[in-house]
């Protein structure tokens, strides 16, 4: 465990020294500023609309805006997770960076765990900060707050951690470039499967629903994201609830405790696969 902490500290220091943290902070501030401007203008427009008995414009606008922000968080969180881990094993080994560390008594498992812990901490802080920032902006500018303020953020964090784990696993077998491409293609495939599931739900097409179901088990990050979107407006009913659910940022499926449990088991399985692959890898 001591070795893993040493490596995690090293990974964090690398992120700071290579200005990854600085770049992320500056760009995040820019994103939140743009989001605040967009939210302010949107809610100004919504407040000028005539009241509708059937449709709650404020809920629709707030959940759509925040859903968009959540998609951005998932995407940028995935970018961060992938870039922090894509060359952790084979990439660093090809550059000759890994061997001097592997020879040390800390062991390969600690190295892997440390690299993951460092990336996971950066990603968790990033997603949490942006989530809280976007929620505060939406609440302050439009007086709209998620029905469940904690669950969607936690789901996003767990989803990004799953992506980081997949990227770390890929780094054991693939070169950095190939791994980056592979993980982003998996990420895109997961999102596409989720959208197909939404369409399947809206049109009651069983095949599409099945595709989404299977993909949510194979790639749980997408289901966690969809579950988070669902939780944003879980208490909204009537026409508003239906329209929000059908929109591009309305989650049709509740995550449920089974998905959370599976995501944690999935993390463990991916970690075990990475450990086994790394243990057998000649450097």
């Amino acid at each position: 465990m001591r070795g893993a902490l040493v490596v995690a500290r090293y990974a964090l220091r690398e992120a700071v020294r290579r200005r990854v943290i600085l770049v992320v902070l500056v760009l995040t501030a820019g994103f939140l500023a743009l989001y605040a401007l967009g939210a302010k203008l949107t809610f100004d427009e919504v407040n000028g609309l005539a009241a509708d008995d059937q449709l709650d414009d404020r809920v629709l606008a707030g959940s759509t805006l925040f859903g968009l922000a959540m998609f951005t968080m998932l995407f940028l969180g995935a970018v961060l997770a992938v870039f922090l881990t894509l060359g952790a094993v084979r990439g660093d080994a090809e550059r000759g960076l890994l061997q001097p560390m592997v020879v040390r008594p800390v062991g390969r498992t600690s190295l892997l765990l440390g690299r993951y812990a460092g990336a996971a901490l950066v990603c968790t802080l990033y997603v949490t900060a942006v989530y809280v920032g976007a929620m505060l902006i939406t609440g302050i500018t439009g007086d709209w707050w998620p029905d469940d303020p904690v669950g969607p953020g936690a789901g996003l964090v767990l989803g990004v951690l799953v992506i980081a784990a997949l990227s770390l696993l890929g780094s054991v077998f693939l070169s950095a470039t190939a791994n980056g491409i592979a993980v982003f293609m998996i990420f895109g495939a997961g999102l596409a499967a989720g959208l197909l599931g939404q369409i399947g739900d809206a049109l009651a097409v069983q095949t599409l629903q099945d595709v989404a179901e299977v993909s949510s088990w194979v790639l749980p990050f997408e289901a966690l994201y969809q579950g988070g979107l669902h939780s944003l407006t879980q208490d909204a009913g009537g026409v508003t609830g239906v329209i929000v659910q059908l929109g591009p940022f309305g989650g049709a499926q509740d995550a449920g405790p089974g998905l959370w449990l599976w995501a944690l088991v999935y993390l463990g399985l991916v970690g075990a696969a990475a450990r086994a692959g790394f243990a057998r890898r000649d450097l």
Partner: protein
Amino acid sequence: MPTVLSCESLEKRYGGTVALGGVDLRVERGELLGLLGPNGAGKSTLTKIACGLVRATGGRAEVEGAPAGSASARAAIGYLAELFRFPDWLTADELIALHQDLAGSDGGVGERGELLELVGLAEARKVKVAAMSKGMQQRLGIAQALVGSPRLLMLDEPTSALDPVGRRVVRDLLRELRRRDVAVVLSSHLLSEVELVCDRVAILVGGQIVAGGTPAELARPRGVEVETGNGVRSFPQATREDVPRIVAELVAGGEQVYGVTVLASTLEDAYLEAVGAA
């Protein structure tokens, strides 16, 4: 002398390619072994198996009695790879500190200062790796390998980027390590370097040790040359023991003798012979 590194029938195959085909090797405490061989002979593979970076497909490798690659074996080893790179955002002092943490060394500032001093980088402790020349990085690599006072040092081409002064620093360092009872396996193409510092040499060709021994044992007699008043006289079959008799016969025959040279093959000759014969 206790054995620090022991390899028995060590094999490594990459698919159908045999990198090591049954190597037997022992390195004793305080011994400096030169590992020689052409590119692709298996030197780096042997080194990496000892360091736990590569898994053997057959045979056995042990470091201080522990299987190579085990935590206790790795704790006894210092390693500098042929193709290495250190994080360029770290300073020399930070890099050594990182390896102290990884090795569990509690040497602290004192050890860092001593190691950087040993490799002639005392003034560069605050210099980032990115700002160092290749030679400086190689010396930093040797300092890194010495973190935690290893009992076995595996050096793969440690002087390839060094200028003559840097090589002298490393030679002196290796002699100092021998004095401290550290075993060193020095893999190199620089035969003159190996000849100067190594106690013993193993020549690896095609994954097998084809020749081994002290540099003196590997150097074979190549006759005697005698400088006389009538020019240089060669005796190709003669040895050092024949010199008094040859000189006596020449003097008795009326020759003026000005000098005698006992010829022996160099390590380079022995190496080329071994590589050519294999």
